[in-house]
């Protein structure tokens, strides 16, 4: 656990990508493969089901030390993280000789995972015993593993680079081997870095090719005839795999969603074996997409009832073909992949559609057409070079997303709360309100969008202008106006304002405005009504 803790600290402290890769290479090159497998599991953002809640850890720490709860809370306020607060409070100075020798994989397999089958008392005994064995740093790692909240500041791309360096393999090969479901075992890691292509797992998806935001003028893209223009759908990016008479549907977050969308998965049985499609799952009716909120109703459900299936009908809009007749087609030009894909999908029918190519003669025409995006429930355009290969991850140059500008609203800061981690101790979580009949009604929370300097300045102001405190929440003088951007708006009975904003974030601090110049709730309801009217085709 010490080596993994040191790696975690290095990744946490540096912002240099080269230093991060170097730290990972050194780690993977020196630990046994079973430990490397577990480290990789966490570095790639995989998580164990939460074994122990933060609340339990806190209660056990209080029980073990007899510390008053308010004192713990004071400490927590200065730290902003349960795992770290406990580690700092219980810090006994050093790791015992016995604990020094325990490998990360042994911690996971022999100690942490078996907690699942224990009573709460047994869990308490085990965890408090471990706390006494570890120094502050390792205790912090342990707590993070127990609560399933270990987040490492490293991108999938960098992890792939590090493994590729160890394995002396191209990054695309490693990225592919890391996709889908795998268990953190010694055998997996050895296979991952081996020069030989392994027997492929039939459910394994290809790494998604991700488009980059278009920042340069359209003219620099050259002739529009060299490009495929598609609407940018607001659904779930997915990969559909038909191999070995089985269907697997993966979301872009690498979750298996096969069972979430039975109408798609069942119908996919008609595909020829050895086919992989890239596309978008949308809530879809009368050949038109429905709002994302409709699709969301399907996502969180444990059980899909008949009525849910009827309320939220779905379609799979295919836009690419990655594998055909068991052959990897990613190196073929998009034009060829797409032609074959269209043929397959037209035969397939059912909930499957081709994401249509939007015909434009010029970029000017595309610019005009893009204005229809909102009415069409799409987010803008995707631009893909017709001769492009299907690459792994986010690579600039041949695929661009050209999104429409977000909605904006001017809102007043009313509450602030301290952040966590790097932003513990700083007020960085804000609640904003708009005006309604002379009162301020909260409409959104936003965390990001200000520069470090602005955060500092606002933090300072908040500390001196707090009107009231509710637990960690500060009520501040309502006077600062911020322009918020958001992607969508929906009715919501759970919010006092009667509506909810999608992806709200701070665009800029409007120091030129006073609170009376903020937007009204009526403005937002007007926007919401327009939205509904458009969606219902009225």
């Amino acid at each position, binding site marked *: 656990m010490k080596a993994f803790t040191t790696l975690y600290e290095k990744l*946490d*402290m540096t912002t240099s990508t080269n230093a991060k890769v170097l730290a990972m290479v050194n780690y993977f090159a020196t630990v046994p493969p079973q430990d490397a497998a577990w480290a990789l599991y966490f570095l790639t953002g995989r998580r164990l089901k939460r074994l122990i809640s933060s609340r339990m850890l806190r209660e056990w720490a209080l029980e073990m030390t007899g*510390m*008053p709860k308010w*004192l713990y809370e004071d*400490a927590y306020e200065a730290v902003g*993280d349960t795992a770290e607060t406990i580690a700092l409070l219980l810090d006994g100075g050093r790791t015992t000789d016995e604990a020094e020798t325990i490998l990360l994989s042994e911690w996971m397999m022999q100690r942490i995972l078996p907690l699942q089958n224990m009573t709460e008392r047994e869990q308490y005994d085990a965890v408090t015993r471990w706390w006494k064995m570890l120094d502050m740093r390792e205790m912090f790692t342990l707590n993070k593993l127990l609560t399933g909240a270990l987040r490492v500041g490293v991108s999938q791309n960098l992890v792939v680079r590090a493994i590729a360096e160890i394995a002396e393999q191209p990054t695309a090969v490693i990225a592919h081997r890391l996709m889908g479901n795998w268990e953190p075992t010694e055998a997996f890691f050895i296979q991952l870095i081996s020069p030989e292509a392994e027997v492929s797992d039939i459910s394994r998806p290809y790494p998604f090719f991700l488009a980059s935001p278009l920042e340069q003028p359209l003219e620099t893209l050259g002739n529009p005839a060299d490009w495929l223009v598609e609407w940018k759908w607001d659904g779930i990016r997915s990969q559909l795999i038909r191999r070995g008479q089985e269907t697997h549907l993966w979301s872009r977050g690498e979750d298996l969603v096969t069972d979430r969308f039975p109408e798609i998965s069942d119908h996919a049985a008609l595909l020829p074996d050895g086919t992989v499609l890239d596309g978008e799952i949308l809530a879809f009716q009368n050949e038109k997409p429905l709002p994302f909120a409709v699709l969301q109703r399907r996502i969180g459900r444990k059980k899909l009832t008949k009525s849910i299936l009827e309320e939220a009908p779905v379609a799979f809009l295919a836009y690419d073909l990655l594998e055909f007749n068991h052959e990897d087609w990613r190196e073929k030009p998009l034009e060829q992949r797409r032609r074959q894909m269209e043929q397959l999908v037209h035969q397939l029918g059912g909930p499957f559609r081709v994401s249509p190519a939007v015909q434009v003669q010029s970029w000017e025409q595309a610019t005009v057409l893009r204005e229809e995006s909102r009415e069409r429930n799409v987010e803008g355009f995707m631009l893909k070079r017709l001769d492009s290969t299907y690459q792994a991850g986010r690579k600039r140059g041949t695929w661009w997303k050209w999104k429409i500008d977000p909605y904006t609203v001017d809102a007043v800061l009313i509450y602030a709360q301290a952040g966590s*981690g*790097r932003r513990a101790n700083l007020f960085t979580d804000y609640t904003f309100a708009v005006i309604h009949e002379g009162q301020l009604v909260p409409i959104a929370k936003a965390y990001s969008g200000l520069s470090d300097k602005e955060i500092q300045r606002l933090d300072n102001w908040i500390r001196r202008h707090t009107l009231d405190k509710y637990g960690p929440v500060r009520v501040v003088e309502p006077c600062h106006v911020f322009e918020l951007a958001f992607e969508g708006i929906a009715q919501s009975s759970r919010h006092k304002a009667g509506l909810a904003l999608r992806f709200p974030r701070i665009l800029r601090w409007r120091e030129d405005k006073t609170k009376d110049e903020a937007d009204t709730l009526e403005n937002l309801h007007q926007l919401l009504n327009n939205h509904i009217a458009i969606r219902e085709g009225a």
Partner: protein
Amino acid sequence: MTPLIIQDEKGLYCPAGDFYVDPWRPVERAVITHAHGDHAYSGHQAYFCTRLSSPIIQQRLGKLERLKALEYGEPIEFGPVRVSLHPAGHILGSAQVRIESKDGVWVVSGDYKRTFDPSCNPFEVVPCDTLITETTFGLPIYKWQPGEKVAQDILAWWETNRLAGKACVLFCYALGKAQRILAELAKLTDRPVYLHGAIASLIPPYEAAGIRMLPTIPVSEMDKNHSYAGELILAPPSAFKSPWLRRFDPYETGFASGWMRVRGAKRRRGYDRGFVLSDHADWSELLQTIEETGAHRVYATHGNSDTLVRYLNERGLEASALKTQYEGEQEE
């Protein structure tokens, strides 16, 4: 009973003896606990401090005509009260102020620590009825390791970068922390250390007091193109992210401070490494000190005073917070 110390707009005032302790506005008579800027202000008519503090205070404030330097423990009478200074273990010459009258004994701790520090006299427990204690790190998350252990970590960092051909720029407070680090490292190595000007000028008073430190070289004496590969440089936090650092490239940065105990604070500042090293008392040292002095009344100043006050109150001790202008160890 009238209190021996009260607080007014100029600082901590002793009405019976008509003097202030570490006042932040000009007064007639000022007893100065130590030479840090938020305790030793200029403009007072008469200064009282320890013999070890006196040269440092005058180096910072200029020659002081009316300054009385006292040995630790040497009594001085201010009317009906008797005052003496006792080691606080914070930096060279730092003192607690013991004030005795017929009504009892009060102690103003000034800044202090109990952790061993080879660059100053160790803290002395002064029994008293009322203790005015600092609480810069008054939360149970603050727990210090011995300075020797931290010095080993600094040396290991230095060694790693030396092998990589990089310089180590370690930021620390120019007065006290820098000399403590040099004294701790002197037990482990004999390699010379380079110093920023603000630190270099504070080495002589420590040398004069016979503190054994690593040999040092001011950066200002080096050629502009001198290579610092593999060297350790000490600099004050104000030099962080300044153009002065360019000459050390390639280098890594570290910060030695009690604030480095918390991960968020460490990451927010952007140093490559944080070394947890403080010249203030940690939580257990605060409690230990309060208990050992036998004080039955405690006033807490700066930092997390509310937390300590509530903790002591729940344990049946009379305690409250004093609002002062002392800054303790700055979060910068």
